[in-house]
């Protein structure tokens, strides 16, 4: 049996999974929508991965989870590595592009920039309070214009006179956009304007004060949007590489981290059919009222977190 490693990246909008062999070859990969239910999404994802994967030849000996639901899903699938998405992206990208200097990443709800030197990250930033310039903004504007999110790129590239849209804030961008629609601008010009606004917002917020050096790699769901890629190339005056697997890079990165870790545990696809649910408890021992997240497998409490002090710790039955 050959060894394989599973990486799962559970984002706010999409859930990604890959199975890697020992030489970074992708044995199976899937990309589905999270649809507000990470547990169901991961079950569905595992079903799809299992179908496309040769179980008689490979065994999965290490599992990594990343993304905003990494802890919950890590508990659920019995992960050997639970890593934040910034590290996962940096590791994934530097493995495939050893001389990369700048990694741009725009996902559904967040965006980040990672600066790399000598193959290791030496600075990063992540958006804090604002969702402007992320995938969620693009998809809501696509809906307003009556087109599919996947079509944005083609529309944007066919624009001749992109309109200018305020990039500072989603609320202003949106009212600016509505105004441009109502004054009768062509759809493709508006869409190209939205793509430019996303890039301007990204560079002004996340990329503020960072020295962006070439080679630049762009990933995350939004990297599939050709309009945004073109806008980045124009703004940065350098080519921007988009990997065919750029949207999976977080999952790939965490699978690589699982391979590098010493911990080994065989992964069991049967979690697909096991019932997992989460309950929210309020501690109530002091006026802080910590929200404690309790994760159950069937009726059994398997993990809990969220308490700030000892008083709120819930002991699992060992």
């Amino acid at each position: 049996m050959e060894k394989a490693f599973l990486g799962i990246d559970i984002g706010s909008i999409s859930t990604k999974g890959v199975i890697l062999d020992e030489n970074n070859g992708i044995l199976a990969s899937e990309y589905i929508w999270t649809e507000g239910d990470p547990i169901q999404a991961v079950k569905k994802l595992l079903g799809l991965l299992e179908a496309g994967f040769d179980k008689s030849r490979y065994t999965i000996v290490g599992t990594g989870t990343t993304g905003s639901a990494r802890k919950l899903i890590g508990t659920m699938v019995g992960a050997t590595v639970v890593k934040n998405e910034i590290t996962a992206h940096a590791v994934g990208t530097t493995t495939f592009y050893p001389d990369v200097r700048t990694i741009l990443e725009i996902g559904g709800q967040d965006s980040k920039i990672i600066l790399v030197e000598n193959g290791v990250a030496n600075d990063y930033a992540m958006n804090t309070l604002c969702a402007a310039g992320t995938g969620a903004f693009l998809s809501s504007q696509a809906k307003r214009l009556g087109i599919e999110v996947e079509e944005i790129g083609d529309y944007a590239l066919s624009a001749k006179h992109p309109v200018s849209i305020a990039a500072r804030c989603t609320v202003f961008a949106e009212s600016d956009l509505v105004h441009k629609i109502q004054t009768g601008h062509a759809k493709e010009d508006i869409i190209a304007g939205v793509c430019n606004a996303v890039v301007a917002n990204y560079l002004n917020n996340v990329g503020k004060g960072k020295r962006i050096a070439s080679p630049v790699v762009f990933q995350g769901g939004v990297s599939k949007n050709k309009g945004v890629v073109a806008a980045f190339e124009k703004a940065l005056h350098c080519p921007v590489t988009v990997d065919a697997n750029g949207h999976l890079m977080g999952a790939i990165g965490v699978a690589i981290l699982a391979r590098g870790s010493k911990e080994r545990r065989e992964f069991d696809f049967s979690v697909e059919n096991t019932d997992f649910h989460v309950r929210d408890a309020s501690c109530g021992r002091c006026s802080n009222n910590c929200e404690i997240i309790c994760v159950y497998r069937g009726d059994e409490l398997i993990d809990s977190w969220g308490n700030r002090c000892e008083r709120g710790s819930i002991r699992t039955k060992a």
Partner: protein
Amino acid sequence: MEQARKKVAFPRYAEYNCGLRYLMEKGLDVQCILPPKLTKRTMELGAQNSPDFVCTPFKTLLGNQIEALEAGADTLVMTYGLCKLGYFGELEKRILRDMGYQFDFVDLSDYNTGKKKDMLRALRAINPKVKPARFFLALAEAVRMTEYVDEITGDYYRNRAFVRDKKAYDGIYRHFLTAMYAAESRHDIEEGYHKAKLELAGAPMDRPENPLRVGIVGEFYTAMDEFSNLEVEKKLTDLGVEVHRWMTVTNRMLRYPGDNNLQVQIKDYVSYSMGCNTTANSWAALDYVKRGFDGVIHIKSANCTPETDAMTVLNNISSDSQVPFLYLTFDVQTSDVGLQTRLEAFYDMLAMRKKVLR
């Protein structure tokens, strides 16, 4: 008939209320009402009654003053500072009065002239019968206590990452703080300090030869108060980092070498003082970099103007020295998931860099 002792409260400020309590009770002969520890409720009360765009510490302080009044305080004392903090007292007083509370308010910025005469007036506003000799004796002891609190807190966060039994180690620190809050004499202070110092030093430790060292700089309230910064220091030590923080009351107020003396040491980056703590923080960050720290974390609250200014200086220090800096801004939100992600990523980055650079 003798008047009942005043019930005086000062809002929670990191772990410095033990010294303030000692000073009030021993030096000013008033009863100190210790407001409850900061919790989500404090923040909610404060945010509800504060202007929206004021800096976050205002909201925390106001919420805690409401809690102090609920606990029975009849006199509130508020400090002054070099930034918007100077106006906090006046605004708090008006908001609390509008809410219908009745209390005496002693705003130290009314007496902030540096003259001895005005200092005495401030003390008399708290207790008209104050005995200056007694006050200054208690002040010296409270200052000593504050220095001890900073020293022990420093030891605690420097070593917590490496101790074998974190729970016991946390216990030593907690007991020390309890002893300081309960101290009734110089003897109690000394005893509590020496006990903690010995116990902390005696805790079994597995210290790696070359651990990751991170220096913390930042705003005078948020960088020091563990509720306000969502326990950044504890989280870092959980990851295995040796944490240093220069910014303490001891360093900034009791033993401060003065802006001018620090200014000359950072003249490559700063040509004039930007006020408040920017000089101190720029100096501390540069000092960490020179001493070979692996990273620096800058902490500020939302809408803090002086620290926003300091960030541009820190950016230059970071890019010249190639030492990663992480900038964290804290607001009224109390979920720490995003913070955990950023700290873990920062830790991973420093650890990987250290491996490659060595």
